[in-house]
């Protein structure tokens, strides 16, 4: 059987972070009571007229610049015509042949290998409403989301992405850029960032592309990855059995971890695009573009490189810590006040485990970055042991309190009382006289660790192992 090469295109939609909708003043928010953020414009009432939200246009220009696109000097809105209950006007205002941004790229890294992924276009449109399916013979429509500004980002054809890992890396990088720019919150579970990959296979070395399928309903990074993997396997199996791949849209079913052919919306899609007569073309002056360019923040790649340089952390750690802006901000605040490597380890280790367990974003961390820095410094000074630090962090997460206050109150500070430590050590030595003689008489020094461990246990981990070792040395040398 031939070896196949995956060919993957990515079409992503990002809901833009604005106060109001794309063409009306209704609030742009997630959730809430259905149909409470609607007006004649976003309901598609006859006679209502759209007025474009400047912020939304600027968000798309920002994104286009960050993705190294050419920004059009004149962009235009077009009508995409189709009928569906979540689209009140019977058309979606979108951009067809004059998108705001075109011909850009972003860089990814997979297994240490850098790769440039080209982007065909970045355009602005409006989101549709939401449909709910009930058990009965009706569906319900909520139009709160109708008219929310939506940005579409499409990769270039022929596609640069040839594996699931590359598709994932592309999506991660795109999300990072969008969150750094603060144009989208990047929440895939809430649908504010959506991704529809199109996937095909061709024999390795073949020039022609295979038939592609498009995958929808992918609500998490994991779903995107699993959906593409599933589709690649399904297509390979079809081809290996001499069958054909049918060009279609397939929905990801999370419960079954499989894709299924979706019933098409129309016999054959035909959107009959034409220029939106209710809106004037957009004139994007060089001055406007330069103003926006000047306001761009430090982007993930630049921040990644700086973290390695400035804080001396590894390439892999810097990659992980710059995945979202809130994580990178949190790290930077901690690393500014404590050892940067220790900060990286605590944030990616114990803190992220605590946050994951409670499904919390780092931006809402119950442990503030100044508190984490104080805790790291306490360990550095030997005020608490690293092991007790883990316990302390759990307590900090549970209470939100200052680590110093907490450690004092809960007795997590290091035992500095040498009399108590000596007493604990003496009783351990008395109980383990056989081991003591093994060490002193037979020179089996590797048994020292056991004694240290016993003292730590006797002091509930509150002793400083360095103190214990020192004291143990003194005692053993006296017995010699």
């Amino acid at each position, binding site marked *: 059987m031939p070896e196949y090469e995956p060919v993957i295109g990515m079409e992503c939609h990002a809901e833009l972070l*604005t*106060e*109001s909708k794309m063409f*009306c*003043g*209704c*609030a742009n928010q997630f959730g809430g*009571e*259905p*149909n*409470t*953020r*609607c*007006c*004649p414009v976003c*309901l598609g*009432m006859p006679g209502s007229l759209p*007025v*474009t*939200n*400047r*912020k*939304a*246009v600027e968000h798309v220009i920002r994104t286009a610049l960050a993705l190294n696109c050419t920004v059009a000097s*004149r962009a*235009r809105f077009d009508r995409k*015509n189709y*009928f*569906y*209950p979540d689209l009140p006007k019977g058309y979606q205002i979108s951009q067809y042949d004059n998108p705001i941004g075109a011909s850009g790229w972003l860089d990814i890294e997979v297994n240490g290998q850098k790769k440039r992924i080209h982007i065909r276009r970045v355009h602005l449109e409006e989101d549709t409403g939401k*449909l709910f*399916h*009930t058990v*009965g*013979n*009706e*569906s*319900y*429509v*909520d*139009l709160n989301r109708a008219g929310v500004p939506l940005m579409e980002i499409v990769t270039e054809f022929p596609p640069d992405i040839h594996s699931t890992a590359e598709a994932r890396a592309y999506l991660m990088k795109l999300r990072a850029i969008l969150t750094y720019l603060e144009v989208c919150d990047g929440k895939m579970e809430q649908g504010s960032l959506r991704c529809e990959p199109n996937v095909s296979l061709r024999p390795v070395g073949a020039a022609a592309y295979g038939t592609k399928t498009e995958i929808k*309903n992918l609500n998490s990074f994991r779903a995107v990855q699993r959906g593409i993997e599933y589709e690649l396997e399904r297509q390979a199996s079809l081809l290996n059995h001499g069958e054909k791949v049918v060009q279609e849209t397939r*929905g990801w*079913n999370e*419960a*079954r971890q*499989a894709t*299924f052919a*979706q*019933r098409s919306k*129309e*016999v054959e899609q*035909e959107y*009959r695009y034409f*220029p939106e*007569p209710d809106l*004037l*073309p*957009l*004139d994007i002056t060089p001055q406007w573009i330069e103003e926006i360019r000047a306001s761009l923040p430090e982007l993930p790649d630049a921040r990644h490189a700086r973290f390695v340089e400035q804080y001396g952390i590894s390439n892999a750690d810097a990659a992980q810590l710059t995945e979202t802006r809130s994580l990178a901000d949190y790290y930077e605040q901690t690393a500014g006040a404590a050892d940067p490597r220790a900060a990286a380890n605590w944030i990616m280790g114990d803190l992220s485990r605590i946050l994951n367990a409670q499904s919390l974003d780092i931006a809402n961390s119950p442990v503030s970055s100044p508190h984490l820095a104080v805790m790291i410094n306490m360990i550095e000074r030997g005020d608490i042991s690293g092991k007790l630090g883990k316990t302390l962090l759990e307590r900090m997460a549970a209470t939100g309190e200052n680590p110093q206050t907490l450690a004092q109150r809960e007795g997590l500070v290091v035992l500095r009382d040498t009399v108590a430590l000596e007493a604990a050590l003496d009783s351990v030595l008395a109980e383990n006289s056989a081991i003591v003689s093994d060490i002193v008489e037979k020179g089996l020094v590797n048994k020292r660790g056991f004694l240290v461990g016993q003292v730590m246990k006797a002091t509930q981990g509150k002793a400083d192992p360095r103190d214990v070792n020192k004291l143990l040395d003194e005692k053993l040398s006296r017995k010699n």
Partner: protein
Amino acid sequence: MPLTTEEVRRVALLARMELPEEELASQAQHLNTLLQHVEILQKLNVEGVEPTSHPLPPVNTLRNDEKRPSLAREEALANAPEARDGCFAVPRIVEDNAS
């Protein structure tokens, strides 16, 4: 090239217009008259002329990103043929036949 009745049937479907079978021929003829006007315009030499997508000069009419009050829900739903639980109710839509 005049429109065939088959094309008229398809355009009617896309526009969700219910055209009785006996009207197809007369509608085709009607639409063809309109298209003939466009054909005359297409004979013009427009080389070097930029396409006009809008009769007004391109002046950006943008609004600031400010919230304004929305309609009360009862008002938003007032024209709906059917409403249930604060939502527009429509005939059941089946999107994913495997869920």
